[in-house]
């Protein structure tokens, strides 16, 4: 298949240069005033397409900020440290966490059963003296990015509901990102500072998701969830 493609390519090349050097064909192919018209037509098409490309509204553009290499390194460092910080109950001190959503539910019994219907989310439970008769649930996540673009906001929070004394956590919908990227040709990026920074690309990094639950100190916690104190 690729050989056929190559042959096709060679023939096209021969035709395009053959039309220029009259050695391949006896008479000059497409020369004279005919070619001037064809080339002028081509130029007009290119011009129109070029102008249109600036005018066509770009829908569904991934609106996001580009991170520099330094910011990415910093985020990587924060992402690495965060698990131990959260595990030791110092979530307020943790850097690089995004607070996504909070819920609070009234708790009648002294019992909380946590049921998580998915994976990939870490659930921590902290018993707090000052809390009385309610459960606070907070969803945090660390930075996610693909191709140096921050996509943390793309990940939605799970659905959470409390029925009786069971806290049910439903995983969020599957996130699917399809994108095309248009890179400027290399002479256009050669002279700009850090011009190649987006060409390297860091691939993808999916952040960690934390559900942090605080319950009154005398509550008995069962099910999915790691009690940190």
């Amino acid at each position: 298949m690729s050989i056929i493609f190559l042959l096709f390519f060679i023939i096209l090349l021969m035709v395009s240069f053959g039309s220029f050097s009259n050695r391949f064909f006896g008479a000059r192919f497409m020369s004279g005033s005919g070619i001037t018209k064809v080339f002028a037509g081509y130029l007009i098409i290119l011009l129109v397409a070029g102008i249109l490309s600036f005018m066509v509204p770009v829908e569904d553009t991934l609106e996001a900020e580009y991170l520099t290499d330094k910011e990415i390194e910093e985020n990587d460092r924060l992402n690495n440290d965060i698990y131990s910080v959260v595990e030791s109950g110092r979530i307020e001190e943790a850097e690089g966490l995004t607070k996504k959503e909070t819920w609070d539910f009234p708790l009648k019994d002294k019992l909380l059963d946590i049921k998580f219907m998915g994976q990939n989310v870490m659930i921590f439970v902290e018993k707090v003296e000052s809390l009385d008769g309610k459960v606070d649930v907070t969803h945090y996540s660390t930075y996610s990015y693909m191709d140096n673009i921050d996509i943390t906001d793309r990940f939605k929070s799970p659905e959470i509901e409390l029925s009786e004394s069971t806290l049910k956590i439903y995983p969020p919908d599957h996130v699917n990102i399809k994108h095309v990227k248009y890179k400027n040709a290399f002479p256009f990026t050669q002279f700009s500072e850090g011009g190649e920074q987006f060409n390297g690309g860091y691939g993808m990094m999916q952040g960690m998701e934390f559900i942090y639950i605080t319950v009154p100190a005398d509550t008995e916690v069962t099910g999915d969830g790691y009690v940190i104190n």
Partner: protein
Amino acid sequence: MYLTKVSLWDVVKKQFRFKMKSYRGMFTSLMMLQIIGILFSLGGEGGGGGGSETFSYDMNYYSGNIILAFMMIWAFISAIVVTTQAYRFDDYAFVANRLSSHLSNILFLGWASVIGGVTFVLASQSLKLAILFQKDREFIESQPITMLQMAEGLTATILYLFLFTALGYLVGMLVQRNKAFIIILPALLFGSLFLNVFLASESTLVIDIGQIFVRETSFLLFMLKVLLASALAYAISVWISNSLEVRK
């Protein structure tokens, strides 16, 4: 004693005007190669994908680099074609000398590089337009480009093309000087690649030469390098052609 005194510059201008008209075929090949380049670029330059249980992603990259590569081939081969006998003999229609013939060729190739550069920018914008119409995908332009970058990029493209015309002109003249170069030059190129692989287990010579230009981040230095290299290549071509016999 002549009735009219013709300056070198007048002859060059006349020949240049003549060449702009008679070498129109060069722009046919430009057009065709650009269309081929756009078609090739539509396949994308690369991409990737992956995911986890809660997340999947898929990306495709596009750029005008493939079109530019085709344009460089075009500049190189076109300059070679200009040095062939049929084209050189066209100049005997004028009261001219070799120098004026070379100067007008260089002017013409410079002009062709400008046309090539401008159409390249437009062609890569057309490619972008084609990508914009891809549905159900989010579009990212890698960097918003400023006017200064645009101007620098366009000039750099033209300079790259001019460099390739200079190389092509030199190669063409070498071949005109002695047909043996048809075999020697490719042999040297590929031989150096293989030798490098045998000696240093990777081929770097051609890449290293390219890096002189590609890795340059200062625009002014880049311009200087390209102009110097082109001037050198053209000067050698002129020098070589002086030892050619008339009508050979």
